[in-house]
């Protein structure tokens, strides 16, 4: 199943990745390995160094693959082979982790899943962080943490936010929305015969906007002690806003390119669009400086928000040499800040995962990009919590779709979602 959908899934993850494959089964042989094991010459990468297989998913931006190969080659303590995997990266990686032919070091969207952690498929990386721990984006690091242990190193941050055409807002005399009420009325004002006011994806935001609406209402998927987080009339009210927009004719539906592509905005199909930071270079190309961005607005009692996500670099528990693999992951994603900066800013348009690098990123020093980088720090929420399993997410999307597209009763739909989520939470916290 190669698919149009995995495109979307990749983008939702909002990160870039690079993948390396490693056919060579290699083990640590490093001279002076303090494990006490003898290195076996047949399993090393040559020259007495261990061999490490590193996987990335295929990043769409030109030059990324060459960049990660360059980083890997520069690593002095092991021979790192990069595998770059197109297609359904999640499924093929998850399958490979069940065998001995999987990767040693690999990236995974928003870190390893809770079942990878509980199934002992990945190893604890907490001790690699040291002093750098506080320098990483808080929302992301929290997402990668389970029972006070960190299971992946954030590579680079992507985010979603509300982008608007300044000229269209000026012409209609509308201010960038601060509240959900502002947003709904702005969408109405901005809608004309050929232009719609707002674009939240071709499904009317059913797939994309559930999380931001919860945060708007001051709620979340889960509470801090990991129980169901939106059994609350405010959630029903928030989701109803999306239903109202869906039926209002102010929302763009059925655009040729979905929300993750800036075409609808640059071609003048919509005045405001919820999209990713990665679209900024294309928007600039199409609209010059005729655009601005804001976080998703708040309702009463809630807060503005932007979803953030990051591919996390993980180490497989089946790695031929776990210690050498951990050492490499630390070297690249914690120590090599120049490479991290290069990776975040030289190919696509992303945010470094370390706060101290923000001021060094030339791309983020002015205009909407500077605003966006600040939102990621101030208003960032991980897209979904670690314990929110694929099954919960499917139930959540079902709920959102029925509310937004079919006009189903939000209270009943939330209850249905809770039934699934409670069972899953009981399972993973057992």
């Amino acid at each position, binding site marked *: 199943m190669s698919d149009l*959908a995995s495109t979307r899934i990749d983008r*939702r993850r909002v990160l870039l990745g690079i993948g390396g494959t490693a056919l060579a089964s290699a083990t640590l042989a490093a001279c002076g390995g303090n494990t006490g094991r003898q290195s076996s010459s047949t399993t090393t990468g040559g020259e007495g160094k261990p061999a490490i297989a590193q996987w990335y998913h295929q990043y769409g931006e030109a030059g990324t693959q060459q960049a990660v190969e360059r980083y890997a080659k520069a690593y002095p303590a092991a021979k790192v082979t990069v595998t770059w995997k197109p297609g359904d990266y999640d499924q093929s990686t998850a399958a490979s982790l069940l065998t001995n032919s999987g990767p040693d070091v690999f990236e995974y969207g928003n870190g390893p899943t809770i079942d990878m952690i509980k199934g002992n498929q990945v190893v604890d990386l907490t001790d690699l962080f040291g002093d750098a721990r506080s320098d990483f984006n808080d929302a992301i690091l929290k997402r990668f943490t389970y029972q006070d242990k960190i299971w992946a190193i954030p590579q680079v941050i992507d985010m979603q936010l509300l982008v608007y055409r300044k000229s269209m807002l000026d012409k209609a005399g509308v201010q960038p929305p601060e509240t959900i009420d502002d947003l709904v009325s702005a969408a109405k004002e901005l809608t004309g015969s050929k232009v719609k006011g707002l674009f939240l994806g071709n*499904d009317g935001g059913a797939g*994309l906007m559930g999380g931001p609406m919860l945060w708007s209402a001051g709620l979340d998927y889960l509470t801090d002690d990991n129980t169901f987080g939106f059994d609350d009339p405010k959630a029903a009210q928030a989701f109803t806003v999306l239903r109202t927009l869906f039926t209002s004719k102010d929302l763009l539906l059925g655009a040729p390119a979905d929300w993750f592509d800036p075409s609808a905005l640059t071609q003048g199909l919509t005045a405001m669009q919820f999209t990713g930071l990665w679209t900024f270079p294309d928007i600039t190309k199409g609209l010059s400086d005729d655009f601005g961005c804001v976080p998703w607005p708040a309702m009463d009692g809630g807060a503005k928000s932007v979803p953030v996500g990051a591919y996390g670099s993980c180490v497989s528990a089946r790695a031929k040499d776990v210690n050498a693999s951990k050492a490499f992951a630390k070297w690249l994603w914690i120590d090599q800040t120049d490479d991290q900066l290069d990776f975040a800013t030289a190919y696509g348009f992303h945010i470094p995962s370390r706060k101290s690098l923000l001021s060094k990123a030339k791309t983020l020093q002015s205009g909407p990009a500077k605003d966006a980088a600040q939102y990621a720090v101030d208003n960032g929420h991980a897209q979904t919590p670690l314990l929110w399993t694929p099954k919960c997410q499917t139930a959540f999307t079902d709920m959102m779709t029925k509310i937004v597209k079919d006009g189903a009763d939000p209270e009943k739909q939330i209850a*249905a979602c809770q039934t699934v989520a409670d069972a899953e939470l009981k399972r993973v916290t057992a």
Partner: protein
Amino acid sequence: MPDGGRRRAEAGHGLSAVTTPERPGRPSLARRLRGPQDRTLWFWVFVGPFVLGLLVFVYVPIAWSIYLSFFDAYNTVTPSRFVGLGNYVDMLRDPAFRSSLLTFIVFAAFIVPTTFVLSLGAALLVARTRVMRAFFRSVFFMPVACSYVVAALIWKMSIFSGVRFGLVNTVLGWLGRDSIPFLSVTHPPWYWLVLVTVRLWLQVGFYMILFLAALQRISPTLYEAAAIDGAQGFQVFRHITLPQLRPASTAVILLLLINAFQAFDEFFNILSTFGGYPPYARPPLVYLYYTALGSGQDFGHGSAGAVILTLLIAIVALVQGRLTGIGRAAD
């Protein structure tokens, strides 16, 4: 294959095979291979290599999946916690899974006869055509060569695109109608139009070829005899063509049923979005993919769901065989 025995009696060659195993002092393998008489041996020479491969590369994984369906198997294929029928109970209690099964029973009830009639119709038309026959046949068969991804791309982005430059919306525009966001709305369920047309386009040619091959092998003497008896038009079709097509029809219906229930690719490529797959027109396999067999690895529930789906297909196939009588005389 009830006629296997009949053929054995008719064909008259190699009757001795039936008793071969009891004969004392069997001849050498080389001798047995040389003579045509040892049917058991020859059967396995023909069928053995295939069956062996099937056992290793198909049956082992199937048995493994069934094994997993009785276990708690998150992110592992060598589970240790036996849960009996627990996974099956969970799946049958899951309203989303039940609803996708129900949807696809209805879908099969529609798409199977429709594809059957259209493919047979196309085959009959093409078979009776003298001029440009190769052209028409090629046109109907060509979509079979098109991958589901490419077809989904054309349907989603070009024919049924929701905005003004989609083909259908362009035509609607010429007629003075508003654009329809085919894949965004659920009332009315326009998405079925998209899904059904792409499936028909992709599949009709394949089954047409099967029917054509069968039609070509109906002996003209049967038609001549019918003509002498004064049969015409539809009568000939009903009393000669249709009965003669029985083996082909059985194959076609069985394959159509399996394909309907195992639908995945075009549904996935057309309806799924970054956020997931909507809860309507969701094939059982797509649901299992999202909840158990994709990036989330819950092989216990995923395998149990697949076994339930397989049993359902088997039951539906048997029931339709009973109802229509097409299945029975098949072989």
